[in-house]
């Protein structure tokens, strides 16, 4: 399973790199879809159907909206050659990547084996959650009962985001 996830993650990285370098914006948007749908397969392999459903639906709707936006604007992306500022940025990015890789590698050595062991909090959630919340689906029990504050925050953030979209995109009354 880890091999399959590694292959899919590699494909996702390739798709993301292609999306940056694509000349046509429409193919860049569709290459972004590779990342989203690869993530769906990763979630299914890790036995997380709730996340997979949310991811596949949100990714499809986002793709539709992005295609509609791209078709209404100019499709060609302007690209200029790399100047001295670009070279400095590339070198800095490479250094930061190496430093982060070193620290993450040292941190991973101290973690549990992948998929083994559970935190004390996770055990408390899992044991007897069906009796405590009355919900057969553990994820809903955690999301709306144990972590209700978190979900209320997410729902409020969504409402605020929609209000922001309406306020920014409106034309009437904007000077």
């Amino acid at each position: 399973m880890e091999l399959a996830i590694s292959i899919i993650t590699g494909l996702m990285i390739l798709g993301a790199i292609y999306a940056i370098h694509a000349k046509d914006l429409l193919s860049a948007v569709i290459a972004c879809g590779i990342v989203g749908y690869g993530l769906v397969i990763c979630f299914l392999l890790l036995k997380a159907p709730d996340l997979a459903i949310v991811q596949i639906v949100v990714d499809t709707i986002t793709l539709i909206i992005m295609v509609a936006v791209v078709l209404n604007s100019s499709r060609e992306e302007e690209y200029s050659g790399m100047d001295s500022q670009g070279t400095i940025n590339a070198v800095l990015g490479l250094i930061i990547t190496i430093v982060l890789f070193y620290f993450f590698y040292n941190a991973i050595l101290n973690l549990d084996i992948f998929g083994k062991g559970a935190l004390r909090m996770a055990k408390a959630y899992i044991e007897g959650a069906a009796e405590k919340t009355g919900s057969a689906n553990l994820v809903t029990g955690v999301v709306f009962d144990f972590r209700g504050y978190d979900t209320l925050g997410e729902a409020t953030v969504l409402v605020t985001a929609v209000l922001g979209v309406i306020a920014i995109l409106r034309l009437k009354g904007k000077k």
Partner: protein
Amino acid sequence: MTVIVKKTTQIVAGMIFLYGAYVVIHGHLTPGGGFAGGVIMAGAFILVTLAFGSDFLNLKKEEAGSTATENISILMVILLSVIGLFIGAKIFFLNFLPKGTVGELVSAGVLPLYNIFVGIEVTSSIFIIFLALVIYKEEEST
């Protein structure tokens, strides 16, 4: 859009909406829940809008209705969580209804109600974002 797209949309859109409603209502039994089902229901609305289009005034009216629905449903979620402050153990987000048998459709106290209201809220939010992108472009051209 062509006749083929319109006819297929007529047949399929209702089923997509029903599937989204199923995912929302069975959120405490099967995978899914308010967020996933809400986005599926919004997909049905977006499909109808894309296939049939609509005149500008009609979409404007629909946007106003969706905004009201969204705000009312988020208020209902907050109201449900505040009711717990006044009943029984007096805790915010208290599950104050009887829990029933695990695995039945009517069980788990207030969790299905939270699922339904969050589902309605997510549906109208996604649909408003889509409508905003359509409406304000047409407003510019007129």
